[in-house]
């Protein structure tokens, strides 16, 4: 069952296709994060859902209500959509007190005074702002302002919250704290969240599903585990977490990196169509590579740098380079030494990936 439904959404700015053919369903109480590099169309998507941008194709629905429809040429204005929205730059109104900021959407809806007071108090409580109700927003820190914005969005008890990089203007310390608070409030109140970020750890920590975009095209929608462990293509693999790629060839039932045969039986794991093509890309997370004394794929340590808790290696394998990360407690080779590596986890992708947008 889905509540919010985006169906084949297109959006162009002049000649630039900001979003193409985007499909997404958000279930009640679900948190979906939109992740992708700068300019990939995340904000645009969110603003189309909010109603600030109209759409050049497709349809957006919430429950049984049509919000935007190109075919019907119908657009419900933002003020009628009953969503909560939090912006990156807080957007709290400096001329109104904290209480009045939160009461604003309720006053617009002409709720009775005691109901307004009750709901604002509730929103203040959820965001730990009760003591500051009568302050002026400009007297609060960035974190405090973002709490006001959150409380204001909560006040109307929306079914859907739209958040556009709500934490990126905060100090790193606050960011983590607020991340858990948002998740906590969501658990208590049960609304859906559509969340834009380009911080992948934020997306991993908060969301039930992650949508990865590139240049306006969806690359993958899946659970954080799926997106991390089973990236749909090379782009997603490299965008989420650290990555290292090796070009491989399949000849006579064996797999080779340059002239070096992989001694272990990796071909079985590789998808048959890649084996058929004869070439592909082996993708690994640097932390999923293990050093072995005997056997393995042989290489030479070219660089070894300590990043505190973690030691980072560059291993020359044939003419290519493999990146490996181990904790400082694990033994590892020194610069110039020869070593063997094995892959605890790996993925294979075609050399040129049609699924990438």
């Amino acid at each position, binding site marked *: 069952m889905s509540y919010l439904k985006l169906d084949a959404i297109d959006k162009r700015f002049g000649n630039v296709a900001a979003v193409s053919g985007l499909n997404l369903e958000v279930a009640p109480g679900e948190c979906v994060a939109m992740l992708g590099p700068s300019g990939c169309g995340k904000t645009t998507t969110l603003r189309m859902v*909010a109603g*600030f941008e109209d759409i050049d194709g497709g349809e957006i629905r919430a429950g049984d209500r049509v919000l935007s429809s190109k075919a019907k040429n119908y657009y419900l204005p933002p003020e009628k*959509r009953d969503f909560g929205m939090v912006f990156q730059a807080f*957007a709290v109104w400096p*001329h109104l007190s904290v209480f009045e900021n939160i009461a604003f959407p309720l006053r617009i*809806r002409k709720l009775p005074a005691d109901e307004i007071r009750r709901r604002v108090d509730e929103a203040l409580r959820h965001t730990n702002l009760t003591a500051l109700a009568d302050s002026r927003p400009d007297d609060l820190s960035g974190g405090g302002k973002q709490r006001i914005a959150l409380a204001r*969005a909560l006040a109307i008890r929306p079914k859907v919250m739209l958040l556009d990089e709500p934490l990126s203007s905060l100090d790193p310390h606050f960011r983590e704290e607020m991340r858990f608070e948002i998740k906590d409030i969501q658990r208590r109140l049960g609304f859906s969240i559509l969340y834009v970020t380009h911080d992948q750890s934020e997306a991993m920590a908060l969301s039930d599903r992650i949508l990865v975009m590139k240049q306006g095209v969806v690359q993958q929608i899946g659970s954080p585990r799926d997106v991390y462990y089973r990236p749909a293509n090379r782009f997603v693999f490299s965008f989420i977490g650290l990555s290292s790629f090796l070009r491989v060839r399949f000849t006579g039932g064996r797999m080779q990196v340059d002239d070096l045969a992989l001694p272990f039986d990796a071909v079985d794991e590789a998808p048959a169509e890649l084996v058929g093509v004869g070439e592909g890309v082996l993708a690994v997370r640097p932390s999923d590579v293990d050093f072995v004394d005997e056997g393995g794929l042989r290489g030479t340590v070219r660089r070894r740098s300590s990043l505190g808790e973690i030691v980072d290696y560059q291993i020359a394998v044939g003419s290519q380079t493999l990146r490996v990360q181990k904790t400082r407690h694990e033994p590892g080779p020194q610069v110039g030494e020869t070593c063997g590596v094995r892959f605890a986890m790996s993925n294979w992708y075609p050399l040129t990936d049609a699924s990438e947008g």
Partner: protein
Amino acid sequence: MTGSFRFGTPQILFGLAVAILVIFVAVPVLLIFFNALWVNGSLNIADMVKVLSERETYKALINSLILASGVTVTGTIVGTFFAWLVTRTDLPYKGAMKVLFLVPFMLPSFIGALAWKMLLSPRSGYINRFFIETLGFPGPIFDIYTYQGIILVETMYLFPFVFIQVCGALERMDPTLEESARISGADLFTITRKITIPLVAPSILSGALLIMLYSMAHFGTVAMLGIEAGIYNIPTLIYERIHQSAGSFAAIRTGTVLSTVLVIAAALIIWLQNRVLSKGRYQIIAGKSFRPTEIRLRGLRLPLLAFCIAYIGFTIVLPTTTIFLVGGLKTYGLPIAVENMTFDNYHHILFEWDLTRDAIWNSIGLGLAAALITMFAGVIISYVIVKMKVPGKGLLEFLGMLPFSVPGSVIALGVILAWSGKYGINIYNTIWIILVAYIARYMAFALKANSAALEQVHDSLVEAARASGATMWQALRDIVIPLVRPGMVAAFFLIFLPALRELTVSVLLYGPTTRTIGVAIYTLNEDGETVYAAAMAGVALIIIVTAEVVVKRVFKIEK
């Protein structure tokens, strides 16, 4: 510096700065206060009150208040509305409209007043005559010689103060402030009322106070349109008194008392404005964000465009055209028709008549001289204020900025008190007294431009020069001056352009051969030489607009 006192470049600069400000600014202003408050060698507030409670002075005070309040209210409404229209809506040709709304800033309002007098004076105004003679109206449709008439004309020229401020605030405002109200359920009208207007209120207020400041001290429009109907404000009454009585003691006293009131009121407004600017401004500036959603005017789009064009046509094109056409009439009052037109008036004032030719050269000469002197004085004083760590520089700064809050008529009166022989120098009735007054009047402009430029020049640049072996004087000449050159150029034009169209100061100080362009137009009009006044105003408009356009071009190239 060692303990013993050395006399070097810093001391010369400091002494020079103090001397310039004391002689040109402090003495005239202090003389005003002294003459207003001291009678026969003792402080006499009661006499000041007596002067103020005389019927005419009292009336002038009230009139200043009425006119300034009226212009402030109308100017603020007009300015805010147009600013909103060109920044927040999908009005067609917004960019061009924005530029056009700023044109009145360039034009002298007394020329506008002259044009409106020719259009809407109750008996001879062309519009009124058209309605009475052609359409058969029983009387004039609008009498410009009234409070409403004066407020209307001043509004046309002063509303850009609010327009500029509000445009700036609306353009810089973070659009998500409005979007978050929208997603909260508010429609565009509610957002404008509850979010947008309150957030830009400090900018509106600060623009409104500027209008008030200028309107209260404004001479030209009231002189052109009010005197006929007996409407005097403070500056026009000062002018009237000084002129009628040729410097009698009673007239001077009334003048100084009125001036004191004017200075106090102006200081109050400036103080309020500073408070609004420093405390009231919200942090509403956008970071990275989208262009704000434009309000769709829908069916109102074309009517509002037509309204803007009509407004510009009515307030800029119509008066300007009227000036040039009347300037070409054989006799004032003739219908505007080809057979009644001639170039003789223009030829006469440009090539034959000494009075007008002198006026043009006087204005240009005064403008250049005042701009040059004030520019250099401004560099020296700004340098002392910004860069030298000397005691008493706060006082220098105060003195330098004082003319901002001292209206032109007050400066002129102060200069009369100081320079007409009582203290050894008599330059009354010469061109020099106008120059002295201009220097005082425009000093603040030069200080602002030069201080801004000097603050960009880091101390280490001078220190590096000194470390390389340059004397203080060489460091100034080779490092500081070249770096502040843009500020000096700006100061020059900030003085030269307004000096070209100046009326308030020179009208109190001119002698038989020392009319300025403004005075020439004003006196020709007074003497009933309306066509010559119009022709002269036309020539003035051409000179002023050409100078403005050339300067803007040059500045663009420099940047």
